[in-house]
């Protein structure tokens, strides 16, 4: 394992879907780093490419999709092009994914203990089955499941939705992986259970140095949890930076619009800002900036491709007319 570099470094990643109606560039020239112990938020509207980015990192893109370019450096080694067997070894071992639907992780016909012990043993063949059971039990306790000894013997359908998600998370935490990709894991959960899960995620990153990507469309969740944020729109990252910088001083017109449209403590009775229009189809994007049809600042310049620029320290954006005056104030 290489020492000081980021745990994950994604460079110019491109994932395309070759559909009957044309090529959808679901992930288009995406780059970011996640350091040891760091939590990165990946936000955007549905269809903006968040999940496909996660799947691409894990080598889980199926035809008609394909990673057609770029690198995914995990502890310095490129994962793009690894064969299935090598990838499978990494998944559930050094890299784990938590899905929106916990049943993507859980096998409905196997008892929870069978699944958890298998996961532990796959990682560490030197320990006994009893030790593996012990570790599984502790992991269930960690995610707030009461009487973990009994619960180990249950089948997934005997848990409520929120508990099932916590079991899936316990499985992801089992081997203390170097990287966790969490794809909207709390969207279907109540705020109190969400708080519990955020607590476990945060603890893991702090205590074991796990790097984490937290995918969501809920800006309020990432505000409290993450260290840095990438905002995706139509397959591209349009703004990225430290979480406080971006939320306090967004400069990309899409980020500005998105933040303005969130209801909150001070908006009662007021009209919310609304981004006009709707999310474009990836098969039918305008040439140039994909946001131009909805952007109040768009002009002729925007019919060309905006490249990544760094108008402020530690801030990458794709836009010809960012909100820089406002940010300076």
């Amino acid at each position, binding site marked *: 394992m290489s020492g000081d570099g980021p745990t994950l470094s994604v460079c110019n990643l491109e994932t395309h879907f070759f559909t009957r109606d044309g090529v959808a560039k679901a992930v288009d020239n995406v780059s970011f780093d996640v350091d040891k112990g760091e939590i990165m938020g990946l936000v955007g509207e549905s269809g903006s490419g968040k999940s496909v980015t996660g799947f691409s990192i894990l080598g889980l893109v199926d035809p008609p999709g394909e990673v057609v370019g770029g690198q995914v450096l995990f502890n310095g080694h490129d994962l793009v092009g690894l064969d299935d067997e090598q990838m499978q070894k990494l998944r559930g071992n050094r890299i784990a994914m938590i899905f929106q639907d916990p049943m993507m992780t859980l096998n409905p016909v196997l008892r929870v203990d069978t699944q958890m012990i298998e996961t532990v043993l796959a990682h560490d063949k030197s320990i006994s089955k009893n030790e593996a059971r012990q570790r599984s039990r502790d992991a269930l306790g960690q995610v707030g499941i009461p009487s973990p000894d009994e619960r180990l013997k249950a089948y997934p359908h005997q848990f409520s939705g929120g508990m099932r998600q916590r079991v899936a998370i316990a499985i992801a935490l089992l081997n203390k992986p170097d990287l966790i990709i969490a794809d909207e894991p709390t969207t279907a959960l109540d705020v109190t259970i969400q708080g519990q899960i955020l607590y476990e995620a945060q603890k893991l990153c702090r205590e074991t140095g796990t790097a984490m990507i937290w995918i969501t469309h809920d800006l*309020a969740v990432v505000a409290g949890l993450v260290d840095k944020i990438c905002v995706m729109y139509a397959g591209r990252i349009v703004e990225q930076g430290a979480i406080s910088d971006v939320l306090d001083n967004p400069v990309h017109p899409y980020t500005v619009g998105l933040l303005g449209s969130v209801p909150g403590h001070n*908006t009662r009775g007021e009209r919310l800002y609304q981004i006009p229009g709707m999310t474009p189809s990836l098969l039918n994007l305008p040439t140039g900036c994909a946001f131009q049809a909805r952007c109040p600042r768009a002009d002729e310049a925007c019919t060309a491709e905006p490249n990544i620029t760094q108008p402020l320290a530690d801030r990458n954006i794709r836009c010809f007319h960012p909100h820089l005056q406002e940010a300076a104030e």
Partner: protein
Amino acid sequence: MMTPQNAMLEVKDLTKNFVKRLDMAGKIAQRLGSNIREETVHAVDSVSFTIEKGEVVGLVGESGCGKSTLGRMIAGILPPTAGGISFKGVEFTAMTQEEGEAAALAIQMIFQDPFASLNPRMRVEDIIGEASVIHGMTDLKERSDYVGDMMERVGLGREYIRRYPHQFSGGQRQRIGIARALAVQPEFLVCDEAIAALDVSIQAQVINLFMDLREDLDLTYLFISHDLSVVEHISDRVVIMYLGRIVETAPTDELFDKPNHPYTTALLNEVPRLDQRGIEYEPVSGEIPSPLDPPPGCHFHPRCPHVTDRCTIEVPVLREIAPGRLSACHLNDQ
């Protein structure tokens, strides 16, 4: 406090139980001596409240606490097990057939999933216009114009009138659902997680639309949502439910500034907010109980930091603790 005279809707001791019947395997197991039994869920447990004309009341609570069940009974699409609902002073069960039909039109429900609630084989014109022709709000000759007006009212171009639901985005489909409800000229809308499935930028469009419609058409709302930020934004008053019972109700500002019930406090503590950074999350104390087997006494007692012996035995009644504020907690007796 409001009097029943100006209440648009009054719900009294409303109760809904669902019995989970045993399947074949269960019945056989029972014969063989297993102690497996039919289980009863008290989805809504003796709930009472009123909504005044023109009010927007937010209904909040954890998944499975009975919000949709309550909403569906009010919308007249689910019969209550016990208790009553009055609309403009007349009890549902005491209505003549004519009055019942009028109430059924006056109270419309808007659902969470904008796709599942629209017939995919019907054109928008038929989806929105069908009921209003049957009920005489318009006739076949005028229907296109009438539907076009409804579409414009919710921000959809009337040129889309010949399209099918799948040709619209999620936010647009939710607007079709709203236009369909508006087409029968309702006075009261029950919105059940009506914006939950939408993207943030589209949510803002639909929230603004609900607020405009309230102004323009003088509508009254029961707005069901698990998203406290949205409820705070849109409601005049908030009702908090926990495992089938109302635990607190208060004007929005007061509830968010000074919650009374320990469950409300716990809920507000967990709401993620945009202006928070670097939160130190804390583990939840206690397990979320199952609605099949709610704890005795105060349902919240296994999770409550202020629990006393009394709470584990005696159900706290919902009572007035200040003008316009109700709470169901024994702490208020001290």
